[in-house]
Structures are given as C-alpha cells and as structure tokens.
C-alpha cells in the first residue's frame, strides 16, 4: 500500500474513533506531546494504559467476586481506572467508569457487574482499535511517511 493511502486510512480511522467517542480531545493532546525528544510517547502511554487496564479489570473482577462485596475497594479501582482512561482520552471507558462509580456508591451489585462487563467490552474494543491505529502508524513509518496529526 502506498503511503498516502495509509495516511488517509489512519486519518479516517482516528477521526472515526473520535467521532464514535472512543477517544476524545485528550488523545489529540497526548499526540501533541509527542515530539522528537520522545518519539514513542503515545504508544508508551497507551501500553501503560493497557497494562493498567488489565490489572485493574482483574482487580475489579476479583473484588466483585468476593462475598460480601467491598464496594469501597471496587470504587477505588474504578476511580483509578477513570483517572487513567481520562489521561489517555479514552472517553467511552471513562464514561462507563463514571456510571460504574455511581453504582458503587449506591452499592448496586447488579449494576456494578453490568458495568464491569461493559468496561471489559469497551476496553477490548478500544484496544483493538488502538492497536489497529498503531499498526497503521508503524506501517506508515516503515514506508517512510510521516504520521499525520489530527487537527
């Protein structure tokens, strides 16, 4: 594939992700932070986010499996997750987290479990999308093109 096409694809993909709310402005900000001094900044952060996500999701699953459920503990995990998702601009994950926290507050186990599933769902979607995005970027770089920035 030629570079131009790849770049177009990347732009479209990223625009779609923004449009569908997977990502928000913060992600663009993140991309802006990436410069010559830290060329892999976004990927690094997002990788961290993935690791963090998996750890936190596991923690949440475990915490919700306990009897009785320690909602404070769950809430702490969700809060963490909300923070990191906000940092990378994962808007939909962040929103689910917000709902999740409300359920935690009202100690609604059913809602929490539903939210957890939703989170896992959202997370895997986001992960797939982002991985695809990074693959595209890699391909572009491999082909010698520059990564277009989204304005």
């Amino acid at each position, binding site marked *: 594939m030629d570079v131009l096409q790849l770049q177009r694809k990347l732009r479209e993909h990223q625009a779609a992700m923004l449009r569908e709310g997977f990502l928000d402005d913060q992600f663009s900000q993140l991309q802006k932070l990436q410069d010559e001094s*830290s060329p892999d900044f976004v990927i690094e952060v997002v990788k*961290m986010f993935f690791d963090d996500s998996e750890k936190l999701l596991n923690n949440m699953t475990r915490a919700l499996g306990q009897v009785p459920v320690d909602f404070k503990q769950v809430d*702490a995990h969700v809060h963490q997750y909300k923070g990191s998702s906000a940092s990378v601009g994962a808007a939909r994950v962040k929103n689910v987290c917000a709902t999740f926290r409300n359920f935690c507050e009202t100690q609604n186990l059913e809602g929490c479990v539903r939210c957890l599933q939703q989170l896992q769902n959202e997370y895997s979607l986001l992960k797939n999308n982002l991985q695809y995005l990074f693959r595209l970027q890699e391909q572009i770089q491999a082909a010698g093109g520059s990564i277009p920035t989204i304005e």
Partner: protein
Amino acid sequence: MGLGLKMKIQEMQMVMQKHHVPVALRMHEQNGSQKRKYTLIQKNRALIPLFLLLWILVMFYFCCNIFNKMDADAKVRRKEGLESQCDQRARMLQDQFSVSVNHVHALAILVSTFHYYRHPSAVDQETFAEYTARTAFERPLLSGVAYAQRVVHSERERFEKQHGWIIKTMEREPSQLRDEYAPVIFAQETLSYLESLDMMSGKEDRENILRARATGKAVLTAPLAFRSHHLGVFTFPVTNLSFLQSHETRKATAGYIGGSFDVESLVENLLGQLAGNQAILVNVYDVTNSSTHLIMYGSQNEKGDMSLVHESNLDFGDPYRNHTMICRYHQKAPTNWMALTTVFLSFVILLLIGYILYGAGIHIVKVEDDYQEMEELKVLAEAADVAKSQFLATVSHEIRTPMNGILGMLGLLLDTELTSTQRDYAQTAQACGKALITLINEVLDRAKIEAGKLELEAVPFDLRSILDDVLSLFSEKSRHKGLELAVFVSDKVPDIVMGDPGRFRQIITNLVGNSVKFTERGHIFVKVHLAESRKPTMNGTCETYQNGETDEVGHISGGCNSKTLSGCEAADERNNWDNFKHLIADEEFLFDGLVKKVASSECYEQVTLMVCVEDTGIGIPFSAQDRIFMPFVQADSSTSRHYGGTGIGLSISKCLVELMGGQINFISRPQVGVHFHLLQTLDVHKIKNDVRADVRSSSSLRSQPCVMKPVELLHEIPLTRLVSAKCNTLKAVVCGDVYSDYSADMFRERIMVFGRGWSFNIWQLDWKKNGHMLKIPQMILLATNISNAEFDRAKAKGFSDTVIMKPLRASMVAACLQQVLGMGKKRQLGKDMPNGSTFLKGLLCGKKMLVVDDNIVNRRVAAGALKKFGADVKCAESGKVALEMLQLPHNFDACFMDIQMPEMDGFEATRRIRMMESKANEQLTNGDEHPHLPILAMTADVIHATYEECLKCGMDGYVSKPFEEENLYQAVAKFF
C-alpha cells in the same frame, strides 16, 4: 405546696431531658450514621401509654391505702372518744348515785335513831316530810323517800290501831293476811300517796325488801313498769340496832327506807352538765336478766350510729342487779372530708405528674422522630446537593472541553501571521470564548448565589484590562449597531485593586450588555473614576435630575446641542463634555509622572470607585424604575419581546454589588437614555514590580516619541487615556483643530491618528505639497463602522493594517502602535499571548518538577506534558515516596500532587510537607529559610469546595486533570 410541687415536676422534666440527650447522642455515635437509631424511649414507645395506665393504677391504689389508713385513724379516735365519754358518764352517774345512797343511809340511821331509840318517837310524818323536803338537795337522784315499818302479822292490829288506818296493798285495797307487812309510815311529800301502802304486797318490792333485809345493804328494783320505765326504787333496811352482825340483820330489821329515783331526769341532769352531750346518745339498761334488757334511760327507737357502740358497766352498789350504760353517737360518722380531699388532691397531683411524664415521653419520642426525619432529609438534601454540584461540574466540564478546542484553535490562529485586523478578530473571538467559559463558571456560581453561598474572591486584578475585555465582548455588536462604545478610566484609579474580578466583570458585562441591547443610536460610555474627585463638580446639579420630571425632559431635549460622546443627549446632563474636561483637568496634575501616581496609589488603603455606564437608549419608563432591580422584570413586557432577554441581569448585578459592599443606582429618562452608576470600595493592591511590568507591558513603546493627532474631538480623550495607559511614557498631544496645526513640529511626529470624519484626500495633498520626504508619520484611522468599500479606500490611502475599529481598546491600540512602530511580532506575541506554549516553555524550562500520582498512566501523561515545556520531571507513585523525595534539602521547584491516592492522599501529603518545611525553618536560626515549595493539586473535580480544601491544607493552587496548557500556565505563572 402546689408551687413547690410544680417546681419539682419541672426539675424532673429537665433532669429527664438532660438525661436523655446524652443517651441519644451516645447511641448515635455507636450505631454509625447509616442505620436508623432508636433511643431507649423511642424503642419503648408503645409502652408509654401502658406506663401511664400503670402509674395511674398504682397511684390510685396508693391513694386508697392512704385514705383507708386515715379513715381507720379517725374511727379509732372516734371510738376512743366514745369510750372515754361513756365511761365518764357512767362514772359520774355512779358517783351521784352512791352519794344519794349514802344519804339515804344517813336517813335510815336518822330514822332508827329518832324513831326507835326514843320513846315516844321523835319522828312523825310531818317531821319526816319536812326533813326530807329540806334535805332533798342532798339526793338529787331521788324523787322522794319513804319509810316503811316492818310489821309482823301479830302486831298488825296494834299497828293499825296506833296509826288509825288499815294496811293497804299496792292496789289500795285492805291488805290480806300475810306474815309480815311493810306499810309506809313516813313519806316525803312527793310520795305521800304511798302512806299506808304495804310495800310487801308488790311482788318485786317484797323480794327487794327481803333481799335488803338479808344483805343489810341497799338494793335496787328493776325499773318500775308502771309510770314508764324510768323510775327505779331502791330499798334500804333500817335497823333498830346500832351494831349489827350480818346474821343478825334479819331479826334486827325494823323497817325500810325506800326511794324512787328517776333515772331519766337523773341522767338528763348529768348529761346536761357535760359538754358534747348532744353528740352522744346514752341508754342505760338493767341487765340483771340477761335475756331481756330493761331500758332505764333513752329510747330504744331512737336511731343513732348503730355501728359504733360502747358499753360501760354501772355499779350502783347492788350486787344483784347489773346495769350498763350504752353509748352511741347520735349521727353516723361524718364522711372524712379532710382525708378525702387530701387524698383526692394528692391523687390529682400524682395523676398530673404521671401525665407530665407521659407528655414528656411522647414529646421526646416526637422530637426524636422529627430529629431522625430531619437527619434523613438532611442526608437526602446533602445527597441532592452533591448530585447537583457533580452535575454542574460535569456539565461545565463537558462544555469546557469543546470550548478549549475553540480557544486552542484560536490560540494557534494567533500564532500565525495575521494582519492587525485579523489579529483583533481572533483575539476578540478568543476573549469571547474565555468570557463564555467564565460565564459557565458563573452559571456554576449562580446556584451559589441562590443558596446564599456565594464566595467573593479578594485577588488583585487590573480594572482596565477587565473593562477592555468587556468592551471587546460587545465591540462586535456595537459596531454592528453603529454605536460609539468607549471606556474611560481615570488615571487616579489604581492599576491593581483587590477584589473579585469575575464578579466585577459580570456586573460591568451586565450593565454594558443591557445598554447595548437597548440602544439603537448614540453611544455607550463606561467611565471609572474615584468617587471623591467627582464630587465637587456634581454638587450643583445633583438633585434636579434625580427626579427626572417630565417637563424638564422636554426642556432639555429641546436643547439639542448636547456635548456628549456621540452628540446624542444623555440621561444625566452632568456627564457632558464640559464636566468631563473639568475632570480631566483635575487629573492632569497627577499625570506628570507614573512614579508619582504609583507612589500615591500605593499609599491608599482603599479607594471608592465610581463606575458609570451611560447610554442613549430607550431608557426606563418612570413607572418601571422602582422595580427594575427585581429579578425577571423588564421595564416593559413588550421589551422582552422586542429585545429578548430574561431580565435577571440587573437583579444579579445588584446582588453582587451589594455583596461586595457597594451601591448601584441609576438615572433614566425615557427615550433619552440610562445612566447607571455604581459606587464600589475596593482595597488597593500593593503593587509588586513584576506585576506592574506585566500590566504596563509595552515598555518597548516608552522611548518612542509619538504624538497623537486625534481629529475627532470627542475621541481624543479616551484615546489619549488609552494610549497613555498602555504606553505610559508616550507623549500625547491633543489637538482639537487639525488645520491650525501645520507646524514643522508635526513632521517629527511618528504617529497620527485620524477620526473618520477626516478627509484624507486633503491630507494626502497637503502632505505632498510639503515635499519634504523626511519621515512620513504613521497614520492610524479610527472607525466605528466601516464598509468594505471605505476600508479599501482607506487602505489605498495608506492606512493599510492600521485601521482601528472602535471601541478603542488599549490592547488593540497597543498592538496597532507596535505594528506601526515596526516592532517585532514575536515580542508582541509574548506580550499579548502570554498563555502561548512558547511562553510556558520559557517559564518551565529547566525547572525541576515532581509529579505525584498513583496512577501510572496519569503520571506518565503529566510528566510528558511538563517535559514538553522543558521541565525536568521526576515522578513519585505515592504520597510517601514523595515525602521521601522532598526531604530537605531538595532541589525541586514545584510539585504536582494528585489528590486521591491510596494510603496517603494529596491533602495529607501536602500537610506533612508543609509541616516538614516549617520544622526545618524553625531549626534554621540564621535567617535564611528553605523556600516554600509550590504544590499544585491535580484534580478532575472543578468544584470550588475542592479548591478551598486544597488551599486549606497548604497547597498553592490546582490544575485540572488532564493538563490543559492555559490552565497549567495560569497555575504555574504565579510562581515562576
């Protein structure tokens, strides 16, 4: 007693209440906040009526017992009284009786002495009668006495002969034959009918006589059946021997003394002598025959109190006869009122006590129920409040995100090459965007106004720049409408004052917004000066126009030559040009040098500012003037249709002004305009050098010799003010008349400013005619409303890029001047766009930062963002690690602290850091201190309360998460 009891009850109540409150509290503490808590009383609420009932029953029983006891006491007393009275009576009766008997005894001895031992007998009937009559007082009980002689049958005839009558029986018939007779020979007169009657003829009398003879003592008969029962007879033997042995008595008996005694009168007399005889009913009985009691005194029929009877024995000295006295009370025992009332009253009192306790219990339950309900409602309300704050925070955040995009883009746009006009537009757009964000924050705070929770800031702010911003906000609109919009700030007004810039801006925005909305032609003029300096000029005309009477309106509008900003008539005539000039002249003294001014403003503690907003709009009708500050009221309902708006602006302005301790008022004339003026006292900020440099940014302009050539008279002052405010050493010359001013000096001037009315054609001609190609002055054209064609024409004449659209704004004039004077754009960027990333980079470059966040992703992003601006960033993943890293001495310049972290949150960590710092400073004795490490909170919440919390624990500010450049800049700029 009643009072004492009441007091006691109250005391008890108080004690109970006192006792209960701590109990309740304790229980609250124990149970935690979630569960519904019950106190002892509440738990047993169902038992309270039961307790009342039980109490009443117990008290009733208790009272009954008391009553019974008291009653029994009374009965015993009554009985004792009866006994003692009865015994007393019996004793007296006995005594009296024995006295009588003794006397009869004496009589017997008398008879035996004078009748038997003397011969002839010294006693005859007459003597006896007289003697007995005269000694009757000695025998009060006896109605009479009689002496009967013993006569044996053998002596009967002799006896009858001697006395001259025959012995008769009781039935007054001649006596039959008997062994012996006892005819009465002497009798007291009362008993004279007994003479010659044989006492032995009656059966009972005979027995009596025989018995008396046998015993030698007085004997009593049973009460006589004839003539009522009350008469008794007693018989006493009379002997003719002086000394008798008992066995000799019978033989020696010579006769008998008998007496009848009237028990009734006897007892009657006796009782008469005693007190209380009325109350007691006395019966005397002869009980010799135990089966039938013979009544001697008192009537059997008389009913007394049959329940209580006392019997006393009477001993009349006759062992054969037994007598008793039976006493009863006349009346039944009276109801014991005393006991009854006592008991009743105490029962009532106890009942009341019970009821009071019951009431107290019920009340406590009710109060505690209410309390609990309140608690629940409070929790609900708090939850609602939190939800609302969260909602507002969320919404504001949601709006901010796109707004940040807009502002960011504008920022980027401003980075590019722009003409001054474009720059102005872009800057205006950016300012408007910022104003919008501010407004969003204001919406957040609106709720607080309503809740009365509005907190006013007291931060230093630049009044002029605020006015500038407000002006720019409305510049588009006013330009569109063709209005003159100008601001004048007196030089006396300090540069930096303390106060709440947001609120101040809100007020001005409201007022100017209103003016713009309701003005179709003319001008809007905002003027700020010190209240003191205005006073002398307004003394004269003050009162006249406050009333705004109609005839005066007509008068004034007749004189059309108003010297105001736009030439249109204004509501407050004092505000005209002449006054204004006067005011300026006053201030000229202070215009000599900035140093002097700064010095003078520094020595003020407070200034009272007069802010006037004048327009030439439709005005406010008189009828509506008094309710114009009421919320949701517009002068005329048709206005809202015509002009739109809700009418809340003025009321909020008034609220805010009053909160800040100022006053707002207005003068208005319909169809002429409104003149709002507000008086506001503000603290003067002690100006720091760096801040001043920032405000008076255009230091580059200082050395430039410039002369303004304002052409349009009415603009000159604002312009010079503006320009001189911005570039304070500019020399401004004001020339009213252009034509008169073609001197050679003019060509040394570098900047000329033209009003629109200036015909530049002529100017150009003149310019060329002079021919000197010395240095063509830079020219700036002022325009209010310029069409594209005109704009092109102006460009052609040389006003390229240097058309300033009114309203004049300091920043714009400065930008324009800078451009005209050919100063570097870069420099200008730094000044005008201090929030640009370039600036931030300069600010943060090389600084050592510590980022504390437990979330690795957040940490990385924050670090990345800071690194981008050249900072040297270290990270810590918890408060504890941060504390270790910040052990003194350290070389960090600032610290960004996440608030919500496990183990030790940001607040706690900050507190400890501050503690550490102060401890270290205490230990340092030699004066130099460890620098105060700026700590900035990183938070996703933008609620004001969080901010307060931050400040409280020693933080210096906060940045919202995720980082935004502007936000970061604002927070960081304070420290570097």
